[in-house]
């Protein structure tokens, strides 16, 4: 299931043999279906289920990955037949891109399917899911299929020096504090070594932050310099590249990763996807998740202890919390009690609610207290 190596670079001129390697498994898929058809069998494919019931903790890697549960995609049902047909339209398209040396964004692929008549996607979710299915079936990453997300612009601020090979093939040396504007260093979608090399840092830890407003606050207050922190903006649910970058900072530079989000169920899930691995990408958790990452807050008890301005949980929030009670990733005693407490109090709060005590409170009081508690500083 696991990719054998990091994805190849996007540059279309080098390593043609890698392309053939990416296409080979797609021929196997076609051969499997063709054999079924000639035997008079109903076409079908077996796929691991990417559900919360089918993820298992991997001791060795410290992340949650896909279990053994599988489902069958069969042409007996209309939905299954359509997904099978789409699979081969998609495979055709990938072959076409390989021939023409092109790449495509996920969104472009969704629009490409307009030409697929019966097989066109009804939503971008549907096309993204099929690409993930293909990753699983072929044990490749979507970049191997020349498919990539749009640049998502998650940013890094702090004393980190790296080298990025830019579009023109020129290597740029960048310090993420001194050589960037107020927006910080924008992460490209490809953050692998051949594109981004991590060179040096004086930071002691990485603070991954959910909201842009909080990143701005910390930067303006000079928190990165005062506490030797590297600030990484998650931009909500973090993109694959952001998670991969956090993992590299942690593994290569040995920086502890601390996650600072809003205090609500959706933010807890953001943390889970950083630290444990997301369910949708459980087939590549070992490649994206940072097992040592820790949750700083805002916790349910922070809302009480710091008397933060809060909102009442909506029905959706409550449903999300209940769903998390059966999510094995939140099965630890700590998470259980955190979820129970939030349900009991019925309250959620935003990171920026800390401004109740003034603009400096978060950098002078809240974060130092919490980080000391976690023995990060």
């Amino acid at each position: 299931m696991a990719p054998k190596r990091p994805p190849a670079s996007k540059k279309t001129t080098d390593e043609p043999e890698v392309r053939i390697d990416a296409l080979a498994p797609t021929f196997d898929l076609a051969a499997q279906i063709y054999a079924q058809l000639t035997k008079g069998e109903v076409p079908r494919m077996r796929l691991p289920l990417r559900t919360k019931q089918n993820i298992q903790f991997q001791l060795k890697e410290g992340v949650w990955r896909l279990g053994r549960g599988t489902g069958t995609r069969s042409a007996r049902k209309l939905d299954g037949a359509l997904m099978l047909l789409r699979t081969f339209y998609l495979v055709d398209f990938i072959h076409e891109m390989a021939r023409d040396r092109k790449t495509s964004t996920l969104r472009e692929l969704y629009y490409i399917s307009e030409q697929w008549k019966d097989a066109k996607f009804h939503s971008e979710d549907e096309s993204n899911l099929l690409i993930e299915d293909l990753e699983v079936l072929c044990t490749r990453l979507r970049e191997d299929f020349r498919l990539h997300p749009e640049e998502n612009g998650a940013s890094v601020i702090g004393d980190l020096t790296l080298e990025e090979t830019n579009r023109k093939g020129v290597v740029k040396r960048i310090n993420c504090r001194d050589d960037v504007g107020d927006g910080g260093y924008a992460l490209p979608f490809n953050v692998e070594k051949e594109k981004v090399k991590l060179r040096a840092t004086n930071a002691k830890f990485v603070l991954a932050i959910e909201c842009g407003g909080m990143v701005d606050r910390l930067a303006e207050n000079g928190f990165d310099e005062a506490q030797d922190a590297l600030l990484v903006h998650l931009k909500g649910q973090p993109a694959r590249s952001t998670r991969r970058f956090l993992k590299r900072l942690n593994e290569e530079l040995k920086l502890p990763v601390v996650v600072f989000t809003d205090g609500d169920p959706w933010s807890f899930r953001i943390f889970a996807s950083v630290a444990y691995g997301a369910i949708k990408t459980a087939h590549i958790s070992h490649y994206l998740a940072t097992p040592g990452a820790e949750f700083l807050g805002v916790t349910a008890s922070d809302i009480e202890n710091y008397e933060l301005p809060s909102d009442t949980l909506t029905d959706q929030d409550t449903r999300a919390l209940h769903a998390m009670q059966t999510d094995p990733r939140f099965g630890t005693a700590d998470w259980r009690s955190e979820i129970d407490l939030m349900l009991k109090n019925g309250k959620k709060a935003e990171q920026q609610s800390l401004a109740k005590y003034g603009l400096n409170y978060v950098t002078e009081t809240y974060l130092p207290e919490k980080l000391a508690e976690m023995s990060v500083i």
Partner: protein
Amino acid sequence: MPRTATLAEQLAAKQREISVAEFFERNRQILGFDNPQRALLTAVKEAVDNALDAAEEAGVLPDVSVEISKDDSGPDRYRLVVSDNGPGILRRELPNVFGRLLYGSRFHAHRQSRGQQGIGISAAVLYAGLTTARAATITSKVEEEEAAHVLEVVVDTQRNLPKIVSERLDLWDRPHGTRVELVLKAKYLRGRQSPLEYLRGTAIVNPHARLVLVEPDGTRTTFERASTEVPAVSKEVLPHPYGLELGELAAILKQSKEKSLAEALPKRLAGVTPRALKEVLAQASLTGKEDPASVQGPGLERLLSALHSVSLLPPSGESLSPIGATLIKRGLRNVLGELRPDFYAPPVSRPPRIRGGSPFLVEVGLVYGGSLPPDQPIQLLRFANRVPLLFQQGACAITTAVESVDWRRYGLDQRGGQGLPTGPCIVLVHVASTRIPFTSESKEAIAEDPEVLKELQLALQATARHLKAHISRQIRRQYASEKFTIIRRILPQIAERTSHLLGKPVPDLAPVITEIMNVVTLETAAPETGPGLMVTITNYTPRARVLELFAEMPPELVSTLTGTPASDGTDPSLGRAWWTLPKLAPNGQTRMELRWPAGTDCDASDFDWYIAGVDESRLLGADALPGDWDVRLPRQVIEAAEAAEVASVGAGPAAEEEVDYDGAEKTAGLEEDD
């Protein structure tokens, strides 16, 4: 003591008769004049009901026009003009009909009519006078006379007598008819309880009437006639003893002119045959020679209980005028056609029953699907004696009956199996009776009588069973259409794409197709030209089949049909025709053409299809032969079915017990990545 007597005298001095008109003047709500919006609707309703009743009695196809316009003589004043082509009203009756409450021809009659008490139209005249001090203008012409009488009338509330303000003769360009013009305080609103909805409902249950409404803004709506049959005039009948109360029986006997009880009973009551009479008298220990008026006390009670226990002729439905299944369907189609419902349930018209000596019957119609809203409570159309009931839905026995049916069993959503169900559905319920048990004089809701409730439930359930059959057919059709999409469009493309990718020839898909379908299908389509039906039967099973095909249709159609190939037999009395189809190999197909003469009232929905020779679970588009048909199948059909049965034992792949990947719960969406 003297003081008490004085007080009593004082009180007695204040006692005096209250005129009926005065009473209603103070209790307008009882008659439906409690607010200006409702008053307008009630006035429309009373005038239209009278017009329809009169036309029916005269055997005329009713043509009724309702015009509502703003009247400038004062605020909130509207002018209402209702005219009809009925027989007209004689001059001598005109003042009383419109200017006197409780004056009518129908109150004492044991037969079904819209108006009963004779309060309605005169109450509207009274209301108009009270709110605008304007007299009603009545124009009426009977066929025998040259000119129409035009009267201005008000109700003298003190004496409950009509007062004629002016009178003249006028020429009218129609042979006969009546026109009522009122100016009244009113409010014109659209919506559920509006004159438009009232006329729409009226048009559904009176498909023989042509109704026109002109609204204050000039909008003109016409409900054209959908039938030219004048409903049979209901006959006056005698009260039936079943459900008769003691006091009613006493009154009947007292009024009888016969000399003896034995003479009086068969003449004054329905259903008492000579044999029944003997039994009744014997059981009641009466000789039959008694003077009817003298039968009282214990004798009367014995007589009543004997009448209730002896078996009498069942009550006659002649006094009732049911709409009938055909016309309910036609009325619904005519008025609701624009909603394009995809199903009209065969309407149910129950036989007459007796309640309190009066016969009643229940009719139910139902439409489903089309552009009706799927997520709203169903729309309930209530009718009593062909009159739409627009108010007090919650207090009505019809509503109670609808809510007490567990509609979930019949394919509609219903919270907890109670209350109004939800779904794209309109249910029509009509209660007809010589005496409808209304909850109040405004005649907007039917009282919850146990007998009536029971009949309502039976009729609703019978209709709901048709609905259920339709919904399950629809689900199967959906299932079938998905399967056809797979085998006709998706599968060939999968084969083509994979073959192309591998540079191999496209494989023969026939075995996969029978594997996916594993059914025998029947499809119908309109022929390219002319009236008729093309029927295609395909054997999508992996075995060869010989099939017997049956068509069931309205019996009168059987003789007009031409089949190609010709049927192997017909039963015109049951409305059936059948064919033994040629042997069909896997993926084998056969076609058949049915033709009927142009102008026949017939379409695909008139046919039900049944197929024998294959298991019920392997049929799409047709049903298995009903067990009670008792048909002897041709030998080759049975043999082929047995052979297919033997061949499939142990063959074929085991059912896939795997999780359907595309049907599995998706956690994605809750947790977006990028």
